[in-house]
């Protein structure tokens, strides 16, 4: 139990008024950044880094990680209340969170989201605490074929997300892949599908698409039905909070499964976004109330939130131990580490145990603090919704476009958001599922890169996905099982039927 002793030493470092104040400040700033569309956690953290130049590294990392937790929670708030995911990893939360809020269960949805996120984060930190010794060895086993297998697994776990027409689901997902291929191709260095527009070289950001498809598309639909904005009552009543917490034990299976997925994706590192989508897909797959998903099923909030946060916290471990950032935010923090004169890598655990264990200890406290603070600030953000719609409607439009512009400061993105808004409205009205498009846009180019890197490794032989390691073969088997699960479950049922 060497880790335990180290952790206690870490708590000793963190427990000071200065550090606790930094933590609170970081969480509050993070919530703000997460709530403002377009200002995600990576952006917020990189803006804080200059402030940390003069700080001691432990204080600096506490500030940055706390901001990260705050941003993750803030992102869920807007997903549920406005249907605008503040963070890519909270896209999956909108699927059921927003319908719940529309039905008047905003408090319930928010509480479930925050508490399960908090549980996910704590499981993540606990896993980090236990694994920090040998995780380095495991993560080093990951090469391109393994990455491809993980992404494939995510897609497979997501297939069959209810839709009226399988053709429409295919159109939606393939369009997502198509948008993801626009821009510079990382493997050949060519610029694809830009048709001579220099602004397209950087690609079409999925965040722009999400702002258009979800934010603006939803607004157009609200407008069509007349100026009748469903005022979402998000006053947090303590009674509702406790009632929501009391339902948690019924989600225990979802919680455990999602936390495990999150830890695994955070460490390996598939990242929080893949984790939340995968967890949502599986929760639906194994739920007895499949039809409720997408219409306000509580488990549809619990699953992505738990996985998102446990992946987010676990992503810190490979960053510290290997210099492999498990998420975009972790990549920015790693830049910060170098500026403070620390070198991420296995030696960090030996050279600066005070830093490593101080960080881990602060993650326990920071997440608990974030849950409390975010619950306390929700009424503030929810109050916005009591403003008359002729003010708040155009205001949301403005915020959406500002968010779209913020992502990379490109004028073209304003037009793209508008086009995606109209497109999203049409697709939604014609019962096209939109989630597969977003998933394909998020993971499409990564999947293609990993596949083509693997092909360079194997000189064009597909067998690399079975023979490279037992790890890749194992993941591929699980992916295939999930892909054909509807078929398999039917076979099992038939076998049972015959036996009976």
């Amino acid at each position, binding site marked *: 139990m060497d880790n335990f002793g180290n952790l206690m030493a870490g708590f000793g470092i963190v427990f000071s008024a200065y550090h606790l104040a930094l933590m609170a400040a970081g969480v509050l700033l993070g919530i703000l950044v997460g709530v403002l569309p377009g200002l995600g956690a990576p952006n917020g953290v990189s803006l804080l880094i200059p402030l940390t130049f003069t700080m001691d590294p432990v204080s600096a990392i506490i500030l940055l990680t706390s901001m990260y937790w705050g941003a993750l929670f803030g992102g869920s708030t807007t997903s549920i209340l406005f249907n605008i995911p503040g963070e890519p990893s909270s896209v999956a939360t909108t699927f059921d969170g927003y319908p719940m809020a529309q039905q008047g269960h905003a408090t319930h949805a928010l509480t479930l989201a925050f508490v399960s996120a908090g549980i996910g984060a704590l499981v993540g930190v606990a896993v980090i605490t236990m694994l920090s010794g040998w995780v380095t060895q495991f993560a080093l086993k990951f090469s391109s074929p393994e990455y491809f297998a993980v992404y494939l697994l995510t897609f497979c776990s997501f297939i069959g997300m209810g839709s009226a027409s399988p053709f429409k689901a295919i159109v939606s997902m*393939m369009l997502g892949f198509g948008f993801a291929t626009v821009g510079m191709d990382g493997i050949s260095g060519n610029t694809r599908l830009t048709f001579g527009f220099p602004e397209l070289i950087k690609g079409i950001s999925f965040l722009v698409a999400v702002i258009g498809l979800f934010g603006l598309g939803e607004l157009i639909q609200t407008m069509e039905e007349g100026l009748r904005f469903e005022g979402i009552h998000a006053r947090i009543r303590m009674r509702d909070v406790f009632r929501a917490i009391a339902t948690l034990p019924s989600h225990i299976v979802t919680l455990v499964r999602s936390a495990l997925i999150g830890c695994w994706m955070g460490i390996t590192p598939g990242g929080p976004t893949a984790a939340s989508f995968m967890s949502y897909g599986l929760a639906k797959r194994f739920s007895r109330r499949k039809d409720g998903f997408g219409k306000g099923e509580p488990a549809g909030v619990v699953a992505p939130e738990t996985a998102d946060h446990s992946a987010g916290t676990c992503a810190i471990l490979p960053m510290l131990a290997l210099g492999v950032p498990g998420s975009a935010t972790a990549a920015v923090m790693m830049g910060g580490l170098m500026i403070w004169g620390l070198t991420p890598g296995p030696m960090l655990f030996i050279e600066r145990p005070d830093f490593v264990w101080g960080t881990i200890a602060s993650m326990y406290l920071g997440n608990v603090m974030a849950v409390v603070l975010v619950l306390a600030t929700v009424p503030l953000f929810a109050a916005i919704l009591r403003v008359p719609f002729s003010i708040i409607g155009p205001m949301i439009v403005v915020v959406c476009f500002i968010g779209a512009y913020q992502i990379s400061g490109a004028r073209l993105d304003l037009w793209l958001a508008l086009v995606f808004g109209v497109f999203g409205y049409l697709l939604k009205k014609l019962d096209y599922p939109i989630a597969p498009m977003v998933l394909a846009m998020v993971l499409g180019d990564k999947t293609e890169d990993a596949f*083509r890197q*693997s092909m360079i490794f194997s000189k064009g032989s597909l067998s690399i996905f079975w023979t490279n390691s037992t790890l890749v073969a194992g993941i591929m088997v699980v992916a295939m099982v999930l892909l054909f699960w509807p078929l398999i479950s039917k076979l099992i049922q038939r076998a049972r039927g015959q036996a009976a």
Partner: protein
Amino acid sequence: MQNPSGTLLSRFSMEVGVACFTGLLGAIVCYGSTEFGTGWGDAGPEPGYFPFYIGLFIMLASAGVLVQAFLTHRDRQEVFLTREQGHRILLFFLPMFAFVAASMVLGLYVSLALYLFGVMTIQGKYSAPKALSVCLGTIVVFYFVFEKWFQVPLLKGPLEAWLKIY
């Protein structure tokens, strides 16, 4: 075709329209991918390989949607949009379109003020001073949050250049 009164667009025509549009997107993706090789080279797929088949799949699936539309929606005379709904959407969409177009020239701050002011006074029937104060308040808040606090610049136009803050 006989439309029920007040129907602006029928569901069937929208199904067909959107399917044709996605099919067109697929064709564009296919065409764009032929700029680079679309085959399977020595080192696996060439740069155009994935986009080409993605485009192909989009076209095929769009054709599937089209067929389905003809099979299920043709004779049902479902309404996609009534005249009144269309009117409401245009009232919302046109100012939004103008806002984006204006921001290309004037920058986001000025055009968002014009947009908010216009929508609030004309559609929301607020008095001009009230609308003006909301606009100014929004600009000040955005300016401090984005430019000063987080230091992420928003799109600016000639007015900001004249004021020498950009």
